[in-house]
């Protein structure tokens, strides 16, 4: 990825002219050039290094499979880091999170959740959803959120208007074997309008859920990754 962020390095574009980038907001974020990604904004290198441990060689690698890997790792890094941040925000007495900006290039380390959606070849009108957009719908921007943080502590927050009655199902899997290490089910009744419950997947707190008033802060259970 750094290959196309460095104006002196054009490898990823197969001998296109190098871009000319200006430093506007603390990095070379404003670029002009003839290649298809000249209008990128924020680099993704630091995210890919942080999350996937990529080396400079990995990021400068060229070819179809290298590019696919770089794009995937860029967008998954963005999604995972944003997921951590949004979960942290929703664990607090926050009244809302707004994504800005909505759309931007696919391979960039910004906050956008849609890629640019024009009639240019390779794009889809309206813009494809980036992984983060799927995370928003599946995990993060629902009325009810559930998330786990440090020390096996988890929380449920009901920002809807209705009381939620149901069950929490927890399944802990091993990476190595894909087998379930343990499962548990916790009955839950949690009112809306910001009520928060917390529980643990381990330790003596297991199977207990405690409901707090909306003003109860839960920052302490999270360690923010980035």
């Amino acid at each position: 990825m750094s290959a196309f962020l460095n104006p002196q390095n054009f490898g990823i574009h197969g001998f296109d002219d190098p871009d000319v980038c200006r430093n506007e907001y603390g990095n070379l974020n404003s670029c002009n050039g003839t290649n298809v990604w000249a209008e990128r904004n924020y680099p993704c290198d630091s995210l890919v290094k942080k999350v996937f441990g990529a080396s400079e060689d990995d990021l400068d690698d060229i070819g179809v499979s290298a590019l696919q890997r770089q794009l995937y790792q860029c967008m998954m890094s963005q999604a995972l880091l944003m997921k951590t941040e949004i979960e942290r925000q929703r664990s607090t007495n926050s009244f809302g999170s707004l994504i800005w900006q909505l759309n931007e290039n696919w391979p960039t380390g910004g906050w956008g959740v849609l890629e640019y959606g024009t009639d240019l070849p390779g794009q889809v009108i309206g813009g494809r959803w980036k992984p983060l957009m799927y995370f928003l719908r599946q995990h993060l921007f629902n009325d009810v959120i559930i998330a786990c943080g440090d020390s096996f502590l988890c929380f449920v927050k009901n920002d809807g208007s209705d009381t939620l009655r149901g069950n929490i199902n927890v399944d802990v899997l091993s990476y190595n074997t894909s087998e379930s290490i343990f499962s548990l089910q916790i009955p839950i009744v949690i009112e809306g309008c910001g009520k928060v419950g917390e529980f643990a997947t381990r330790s003596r707190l297991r199977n207990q859920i405690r409901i707090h008033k909306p003003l109860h802060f839960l920052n302490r259970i999270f360690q923010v990754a980035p």
Partner: protein
Amino acid sequence: MPHEIEERNEIVLIEIHDEAGFLVVNNFAIYSDPKLLHLNKNAKVKFQILNDFQVLVESDGLALWVMLTTMVDGVFSENAFIISGNEMKVTSLG
């Protein structure tokens, strides 16, 4: 086992179902960056296009964040998902 080591070998999948059994929301938790995870690299993910709108995804091992993309206009019902061993998942394009 020390917590740090224990956590690195685990992924937590959590779901909330309402009284009728419908899925309200789900999420996952990992306790270290993917670069530190000891995943089974032999897991194979297979795709099968069922019809114009549905794709069947299956894996014989735990696969994290399977991402589908297409040139067709639309979005998938589920994407960037986790699929555990011997699981099948159908995602729809709508």
